[in-house]
């Protein structure tokens, strides 16, 4: 019998330590999925913990038609999507259009966005590179971000990703390809 299912049975029989074992066993992956989805360490910690709390109360109704890890990743991905949605609403409220004129001491001038591309290769250290990757992933559309994170960063199979996101295999493949091509263009200066 699956090791996770044994732990779930022990937990349902009243052994609280079995739940802790489940947390510890999967926490690394859950935390990193949340971090890559949200791009923020504290938010990732919060959401990864919330995923376990949700699972704690749901284990009794868990139907075992998928593996426990698939179920757990589905919960964390959905919680991340909700957090991103509420962040989006927040951001809309305070967003300043880049086309809006900017007020400076010399008067009102147009905003300018400087390209970092030409000298990027020389000045980038590992931290900046990591930041650019994070931003590039963050700029992907909903539905594409999670596919590339689960496949290329976390190394999950197409089948598992299809179950987690509840889409068919063909859609996983096409979204993955589109997300990779977008990232390839966005990260041109650093890879």
């Amino acid at each position, binding site marked *: 019998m699956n090791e996770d299912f044994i732990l779930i049975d022990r937990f349902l029989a009243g052994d609280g330590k079995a739940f802790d074992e489940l947390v510890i066993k999967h926490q*690394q992956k859950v935390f990193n999925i949340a971090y890559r989805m949200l791009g923020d*360490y504290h938010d990732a910690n919060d959401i990864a913990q919330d995923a376990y*709390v949700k699972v*704690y109360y749901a284990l009794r*109704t868990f139907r075992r038609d998928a593996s426990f890890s698939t179920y757990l990743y589905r919960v964390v991905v959905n919680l991340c999507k909700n957090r991103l949605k509420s962040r989006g609403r927040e951001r809309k409220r305070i967003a300043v259009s880049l086309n809006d004129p900017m007020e400076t001491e010399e008067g009102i001038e147009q905003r300018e966005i400087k390209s970092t591309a030409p000298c990027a290769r020389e000045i980038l250290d590992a931290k900046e590179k*990591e930041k650019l*990757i994070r931003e590039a992933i963050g700029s992907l559309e909903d539905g594409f971000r999670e596919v590339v994170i689960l496949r290329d*960063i976390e190394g999950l199979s197409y089948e598992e990703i299809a179950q987690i996101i509840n889409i068919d295999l063909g859609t996983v493949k096409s979204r993955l390809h589109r997300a990779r091509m977008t990232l*390839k263009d966005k990260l041109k200066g*650093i890879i």
Partner: protein
Amino acid sequence: MDCKEVRNLLSAYLENEDFAQRKIVSEHLKTCRNCAGELEELKATISTLAGVEKLEVPSDFLEGVHRKIKPEHQINEVWKKLFCPLHIKLPLEAVAVAATVFLVLTIYNQIALQPKPQRVALKSELAKAPLIASPEREATITLVSDDIERDLKLLPLLVNEVGGKIVEPPKEAFVKKEKFVEKKLLPQAEMADRMERKAVSVPTRSFDMTFQIPQDKMSIFMYKLEAIAPPEAEYGRALKSKELPKSEPVIIHLKLNSPQ
């Protein structure tokens, strides 16, 4: 196969999918430097992503999970901390006697030391309490269930678990909801993207029920309710009035719907 088609197949090519297509792409790459370059860039992107740093989980992660699983888990932990360090086990009778003495003394102190004006305060508080349930102490929650039969059995158990009371048992109501479907206007290929949105009635199974939940159990109840609903389910938020006396339960009108 032209460059555009080949580029759409590069991910599949790297994942060793579809042998026949792989051969065609491979032939194309031998003669097209642009597409070969694209493939190299794509490979580099994938290996960059695979090599991103994996973060360590904060050392207090598990503790944080425990803190959030309130209050049952915490209570268990408190009990453990209280009794586990003791090498001798107290007999249950001794604990019960000590608890009873403590309770009697506390109640006696309350009665003996209670100042008289407090009775007036109690009266005025009663006078303020509405005769019928005020809307603030009620909440309406809509739950979209993927397994309505299972959840109908689980909900009463859940209400029981948090010390709640069922006021109105589940009653079935068939409702018809409008759903928009897209309909092709013309069959010709050039007009295929012209669609018309049309509303159709879709029968939805729905159950209505009402129950009372103690205020201090509301957060745990909501957690459990979320657990019943699949992660994608939508539910309303329970509203709680700050002025509501702690002893008053919250009345929940729950609507359990099958997904459309």
